[in-house]
């Protein structure tokens, strides 16, 4: 009895990122015809800079959604992390690298807290992270006294600086974002840990019965997502050059948008982090392209909303077909 590998066309059809990728390419072709500024290295570098913060948040969001959870608190955690690291460095005179580490640790802590509440008390992730959103949002404003932190040390804005690749300026932050995506694509696709995350998202009971320590896995996923939000905070700080307590308020829903547009199922267990990158780029390309065409920004929001509903519809329909 011969066991064949899936043929290439079949693999493309069954690859969940194929749809989002096609949408991204089509959008690029469309905007390239509509605006001659669109298809330039500088513009693409700009798009990546515009999506890197939300994209990085969306990496953590992908991990959590793969376990059939959701995180409503990631934008708030990022804003708090940004305030913590900038305030510690500027106002408390901590060495910048130490302040950054403290900011990352704080974000990882809130992720861990989310994970423990979800796992130990068995609360729905939606409610836990909704509560955490308010807690962290309030803490951000209390701790910062609603003041923006300025005059950051150069180490904190380093990721906002650029280097040249073939005539285009690319920020170190963009590079870090791409590397993070590749790292998590590897972890999810090529390690046992990644397989376990998918198994957990498919069915916690199946995962438990195959000997996976599901409790530890869930808590780890939320804590790791928190750490990634910390990196998003650093990217945000380096891009804006300030610690802003008002930051990140729409980024949470944008990160969910990127995950969903990237073909990851909100029901858990299906999806990829590279799909999320494509999803983030789709949002970025639409925003940028419509801007170049002179379309008012409220229409960008309208179109993003329609895209999300389309994406979940496709997900739901394809699930129905395979069941």
């Amino acid at each position, binding site marked *: 009895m011969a066991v064949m*590998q*899936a043929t290439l066309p079949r693999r493309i059809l069954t690859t969940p990122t194929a749809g989002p990728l096609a949408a991204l390419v089509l959008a690029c072709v469309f905007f390239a015809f509509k605006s001659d500024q669109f298809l330039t290295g500088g513009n693409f570098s700009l798009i990546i800079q515009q999506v890197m913060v939300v994209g990085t948040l969306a990496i953590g969001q992908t991990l959590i959604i793969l376990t059939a959870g959701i995180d409503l608190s990631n934008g708030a955690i990022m804003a708090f992390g940004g305030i913590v690291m900038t305030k510690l460095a500027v106002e408390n005179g901590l060495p910048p690298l130490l302040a950054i580490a403290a900011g990352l640790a704080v974000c990882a802590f809130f992720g861990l807290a989310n994970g423990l509440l979800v796992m130990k008390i068995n609360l729905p992730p939606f409610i836990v992270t909704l509560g955490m959103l308010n807690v962290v949002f309030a803490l951000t404003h209390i701790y910062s006294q609603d003041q923006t932190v300025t005059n950051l040390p150069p180490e904190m804005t380093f990721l906002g600086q650029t280097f040249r690749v073939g005539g285009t300026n690319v920020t170190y932050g963009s590079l870090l974002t791409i590397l993070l995506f590749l790292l998590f694509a590897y972890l999810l696709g090529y390690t046992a840990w990644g*397989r*376990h995350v998918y*198994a957990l998202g498919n069915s916690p009971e199946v995962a438990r019965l195959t000997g996976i320590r599901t409790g530890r896995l869930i808590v780890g996923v939320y804590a790791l997502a928190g750490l990634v939000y910390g990196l998003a905070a650093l990217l945000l700080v380096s891009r804006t050059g300030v610690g802003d307590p008002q930051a990140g308020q729409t980024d949470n829903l944008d990160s969910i948008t990127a995950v969903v547009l990237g073909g990851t199922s909100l029901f858990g267990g299906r999806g990829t982090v590279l799909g999320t990158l494509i999803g983030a780029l789709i949002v970025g390309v639409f925003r940028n392209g419509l801007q170049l065409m002179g379309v008012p920004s409220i229409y960008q929001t309208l179109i993003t909303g329609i895209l999300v509903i389309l994406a979940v519809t496709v997900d739901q329909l394809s699930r129905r077909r395979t069941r």
Partner: protein
Amino acid sequence: MTPVLQARGLVKRYGHVTALDGADFDLMPGEVLAVIGDNGAGKTSLIKALTGALQPDQGEILLDGKPVRFRDPLEARRHGIETVYQDLAVAASLDIATNMFLGREVRKRGPLGTVFRMLDKKRMREESARHMEDLKIGLRSLTQPVESLSGGQRQGVAVARAVAWASNVVVMDEPTAALGVKESGQVLDMIRRVRDRGTPVVLISHNMPHVFEIADRIHVQRLGRRVAQLKPADHNMAEVVAIMTGAMTVTDGKAVVADKGAAEAIGLS
């Protein structure tokens, strides 16, 4: 001959409810043992105790004649006892090879595996292919997600996984309950092949024709205990059902009417 897996006087109480009331169990090498019993007879509790999913209050379990104690299913599995659960067998979106090795992944040799923790997907695919072939489970591709398979094929993956890792015993809980006629036949064939390879199988089933078709011996569980061990050749289905429900009892290997009214009601004697 020493039984592979044995239990003596297992007791499990949940408050006022006694799930196991001094249950014995014997599984001999190389046999298919069917465990049957009415709802609430303690089949599931018995099987859970034997596979580490619950801890009995009293009694002992012996593996190859040596006393063992399983604190969780993982520990039973480490002792070579694998369980196929009725509908909780596989992770739907993952492919066959990944499912076969779920929780027991193989990493690449060298620094790729030790430092970067990279999985050896090729080796896992090859070994999965070999196991599937051993059980004559025909599949187009090992890289397709199991949700694209039929119910029988999915059960096949679960059985193949259990067999691949079971060094001592394979336990199957209602493996055909959710399947159609043809697919049930395939799973029964698989069970036969597992036995023929020398691994004893414990089969929990409600389906009397399946039990009679495949079992070498039948363990009848009733009111938390084993009330009979039968050979399918010595009894007909109606008698076995009567023993299961308490209408008949077994004395000296012969089925005797215990409850005349009940026996008549099901058309015996």
